[in-house]
């Protein structure tokens, strides 16, 4: 029964997807949607979203909102960076793969950090082995490369830790 909150939050998310696909308020459609989303959520043990009810805790909810806005800002910055880079006559690149350490333990959080790093300025994630993350820089930062990379990874992982405890 410890999976019940996860199953319920997964079925709510699936029901939202169902509504935005059908866009209908017919009672038959809604009933079918509820039944199908419950079946899928129970069959997958709620693995799609995990327990979303922890976000109702105001501190964690604020942390999640903070993370989303930080991520959107970084995404816009990344595109300005790409934009300024590719319209030059000679593209300035100085590539390299740098290792950093992840302090966060949960697998879901690791996946979120890796995907966020892929969408932020100048970096993509190549691989995660254990708790080490390997980041590819299009233009290596000046100064201590490892410290800069670690600071960049921590800026995401630190914000996520507040959500995942």
């Amino acid at each position, binding site marked *: 029964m410890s999976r019940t909150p996860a199953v319920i939050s997964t079925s709510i998310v699936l029901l939202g*997807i169902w509504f935005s696909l059908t866009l209908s308020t017919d009672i038959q459609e809604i009933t079918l949607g509820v039944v199908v989303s419950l079946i899928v959520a129970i069959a997958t043990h709620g693995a799609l979203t995990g327990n979303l009810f922890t976000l109702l805790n105001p501190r964690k909810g604020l942390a999640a909102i903070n993370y989303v806005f930080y991520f959107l800002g970084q995404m816009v910055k990344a595109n300005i960076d790409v934009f300024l880079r590719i319209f030059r006559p000679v593209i300035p690149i100085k590539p*390299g793969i740098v290792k950093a350490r992840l302090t966060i333990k949960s697998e879901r959080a690791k996946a979120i950090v890796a995907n966020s790093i*892929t969408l932020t300025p100048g970096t993509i994630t*190549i691989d995660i082995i254990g708790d080490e993350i390997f980041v590819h820089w299009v233009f290596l930062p000046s100064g201590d490369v490892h410290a800069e990379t670690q600071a960049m990874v921590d800026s995401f992982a630190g914000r996520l830790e507040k959500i995942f405890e």
Partner: protein
Amino acid sequence: MSFMDILAHVFTGLGALVLFASGLGVFRMPDVFNKMHAGTKATTLGSVLFLIGLGLFEPSWMPKLLLIVLFIILTNPVSSHALARAAYNEPSEKPDNLLIDDLEESKGGAQ
């Protein structure tokens, strides 16, 4: 012209520009990982801006467009990650212009 209309024009125009930039980046960048920088970041934000801009023109389409946007944001880094691993692990595909390569040492040490 209402405020919403201007916003929709700005969003679609910027989105199309960013999508063009992603095509140009994929064409011009020298090796796989750098192509991926243009191909992932620019297409994600470009699609998001473009689809939301069209959704502002036609508000009844917004839910379905938001679903496509959510799907693109969730899956685009995943396919990029899979391609990056493939490009690194296959010796004939790996680019040779890396200045620092920590992953090489780490894999060499493990085996």
